[in-house]
Every structure is written in C-alpha cells, then in structure tokens.
C-alpha cells in the first residue's frame, strides 16, 4: 500500500526532517509510527497525504508515485486517504452531521448520497444519536470519533492519524484505538503516529521508530 525509498526532507529553516527513509507498509496492515517529539513523524505523514513534498526519494501509495503527482491530481489522491489529527479540526459552526456532509458536498457527492453515507459512518463510530450536536458540546473522545467518521466517509483504503489520542485521557484513547482496529479489520490500511508506548502495547501491532528523521526500527 505504501512504499518509501530513500526519502529526504529538509526543514525550511535548515536541517533534515527525514533522512534516507525507506518504509514498506502492505495493504491492510496497522502500523504505528513512533518516536520522540521532533523525530519526523508528522513530516512523514504529511508526505503521505501530499501536504508536503519530498526533496529526494520516491513515495508510492497504492502503486502510484506521488512524488511525480501534478498539483491538479492531488485532490484525487486525498479522496483515497482519510486523515485524523490530534486537534480534531472539526468546524465549530457546523453540527457533527454537517461537518461530515460538508466534506462530501465539497467533492461533489450529491446531497442524498452524502446523507446516506454520513448516517452510515456516524453509526459505525457510534455517534448517530449526536449528529445534530455542535462539536463544542461533545467530549474529546466523541469529537475524535466525529473526526474519524469524517476521515472514513469516502471509504478510503488508507487511514492516517497524527497523534489522534494526544488530547484524550487513557480510557478515551483506548476507545479510539479500538475503533481504529475495527476499521483495520474492514481491510483499511491504518497508519498512526504516536509517542504513547502504552497504546502501542495495547494494540500490539508493528511499530516503526523514527529518531532524528531516520528509521531506527521496524522499517519492514
């Protein structure tokens, strides 16, 4: 599903965010990217969904070399990747339902189809009953589940999560991880960046460790 070969990325201010990174994640796998703050976890994920581009090296997603992607093809890549962030990035003026439906309408999904998909995904994450609530009225765990629903609504084959439990207590963090495992069981490749070792142990899947922009453990 994901293959990186000799990927380099330099910070704008100087210094390397990633150095000679090589990584292979097969389709349907659940992988943690771990390491201390500043190790390059977020940069690595940003490269995967095209928010940043590599200075050197090749990145293949589902067989497609995204380092050669034209700018106008980027939206189509992103429709196949769900992204979840630590700060949820929910729109406060929209209800849970609208937060997700808005994303569907933004990519041209007809209203009726969007409604159907949103109900389905809210059911999946257990938020159907709270669909008309605004994000500020939800708990942190519920907000993250709404963000996961938004990431899943296009039924992407790849789900990327950057420190998704950073703002959650342990119980909620485990709930979110259980949800990721359930999603992974539906054949979705899941890549989660976290520095929380207890969660990695809780889930018990492969962990790729980054230090100073280099993979030191678990590359393949």
């Amino acid at each position, binding site marked *: 599903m994901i293959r990186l070969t000799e990927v380099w990325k330099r910070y704008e201010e100087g210094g390397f965010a990633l150095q000679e990174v090589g990584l292979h994640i097969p389709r349907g796998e659940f992988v943690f990217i771990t390491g201390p703050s500043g190790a390059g976890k977020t940069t690595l994920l940003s490269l995967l969904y095209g928010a940043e581009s590599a200075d050197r090296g090749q990145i293949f997603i589902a067989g497609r070399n995204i380092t050669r992607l034209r700018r*106008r093809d980027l939206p189509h890549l992103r429709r196949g990747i769900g*992204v979840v962030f630590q700060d949820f990035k929910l729109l406060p003026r929209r209800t849970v339902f609208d937060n997700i439906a808005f994303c569907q309408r*933004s990519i041209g999904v007809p209203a009726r189809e969007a409604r159907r998909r949103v109900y389905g995904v809210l059911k999946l994450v257990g938020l159907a009953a709270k669909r008309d609530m605004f994000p500020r009225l939800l708990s942190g765990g519920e907000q993250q589940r709404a963000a996961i629903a938004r990431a899943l609504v*296009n039924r992407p084959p790849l789900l990327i999560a950057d420190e998704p439990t950073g703002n959650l207590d342990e119980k909620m963090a485990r709930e979110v991880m259980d949800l990721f495992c359930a999603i992974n069981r539906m054949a979705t490749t899941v890549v989660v960046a976290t520095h929380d070792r207890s969660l990695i142990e809780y889930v018990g899947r492969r962990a790729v460790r980054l230090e100073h922009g280099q993979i030191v453990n678990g590359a393949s």
Partner: protein
Amino acid sequence: MIRWLLSFPYFLREALKGMRESAGVPFIAVGITTISLIFLGALWIVRLNVSDLIVTWRERFQLTIFLAEGASPEQREALRRVVSGAQAVQRVEEVSPERAVEEFRGWLGPDADLLEGFDGNFLPASIRVILKPDRRDLAHVESLMAQVRLMPGVERTRNDLAWLRRLEGAIRLVDVAAWTLSGLLGLGVVFIIGNTIRLTLFARKDDIEIMHLVGATDIFLKTPYVAEGVLCGALGGALSVLALWGLFYGVFLPLAGRYAGEEFAMSAGGWSLALGLLGTGAALGFLGSAFSVRHFLRGTR
C-alpha cells in the same frame, strides 16, 4: 463538470450562509455597489436621453433658403430645380410669406395676438429642404449650401447644423466621461467586493483547510466564494435599478413635468438598462471575488 453543475444549489446555499455569517460585511459591499451603480446608471440615462434627442433632432433637421424680396419666378424655379436635383435632398417645400406667418402664429399659440398690427406678409418667402436621412451630415449640407448661396434670388440660408455639431461634441464628451467614470466606479466595486470576499475567506480558513484535506478540487473550493461575490454584485445591481427607477419616476419626472410641460419625455433606460446594471454588478462581483479567491488559495495549498 456535471458534478459541479449539479452542486450549484449547494454552492448558492454556502454563498448565502457565508453572507449571513460574515456579520454584515457583505451588506456593506452590496451598499457600496448599489451607490456606485446608481451613479453609473444615472450617467447612462443622461447619455441615452441626449443621444435620443440628437436622433430626434437629426430627423427633423432641415435647411431653409430665404428668398430675396424681388426674386423672380424664374429664379425660384431655377433654385427649386437645382436643390431638388441634389443627391442629398429628399424633398423640397416652398413656403410663401403668408404660410410662414401662419406657422409662426401656430408656434406662438395663445400669444399669437402679439402679431396684431403686423403686416400679413412680413416674413420672407423661403424654400425648405429636407435631406435624405443618410445624407444629413456636414459634408453634404455644406456643399449644397455653398452652391445655393451663389444663386440669384437667394437672400441667405440657414441650417441647424452648427448647434447639432456642438451637441454631438457634447455627447462625445458625455461618452468619455461615462466610460471613464464607469471604469473608475467598476474598479472601486471590484476592490470592495474583492476585499469582502477576502474577509469571508479568512473567516472560513478552517473550512478551506478541511476542503483541501478531503480532496476538494479547485473549482469546488472557489465556487461558493465566487458565487458570494456574484450575489453581492447582482444584489447591488438590482437595488440600484430599483433606486434609479424610484428616483426617476417618483421624483425627477414629476418635477420635470411641472417645469418643462407635459410634452417633456425622457426614458429611464427600460429593461436593457436594468439588465445592464444587474449584469454589470454580477460581472464586477465575479471579477473581485475570483481575484481574491485565486490570490488567497495560492497561499493555502
């Protein structure tokens, strides 16, 4: 493309939502657009009416050849033959002194009694020359006049060309002023709407970030904001038409009728002006918003 077209109701809803949520800022843009388009519309109404006036006067345009008191019938006949034979001439009318006085009496209307005591033939005989519509220009008129003036039996000639030319000069000036002012006002509206949309874009930066993230294409990202600009412009255009017509029919025409008589006729431009202002507003809104959105999105990718 089909997805984009089918999503139009959604874009409009988002545009209206954006206008509501921007705490009245778009309505300031609509107000300024309205005022600018009122000025622009008024200018074009003036231009239209002056232009219509010139066309009317041109249609009535005629040359008058006043005959000398002692002009012989042969001289009159020769004159009539020469003038009728000229290519530019459509028709020739001979006006006797009696008919001239009658017509003058008619013009004076209720004040015709001013002519009491005058000799019935105090006006000179004349020949009226009506030119063909396509020959009512300076070159044709001057060449005919030059020829006629030298003929025996002619006392003097008169034509309305000089003031018609001055009027045409004036309308050219009005044209230049109208286009210059339209350009300046248009630029102002583009600037105001562009900045309004920029504020909306800043206010909805998070929405745009999410749209980028979920794979919205540029056209889907831009359209709601461009639609908001077009709505602001079109709304300004529609309000300016209502205001202009209100002022024209409610204030200007009654006042003009009172001071210039009931025959006073002016046009408010009709539907063509209304559609013109609506279209201009929408086009200016489109330009302002498209420019802002393009500029803003370049910095967010």
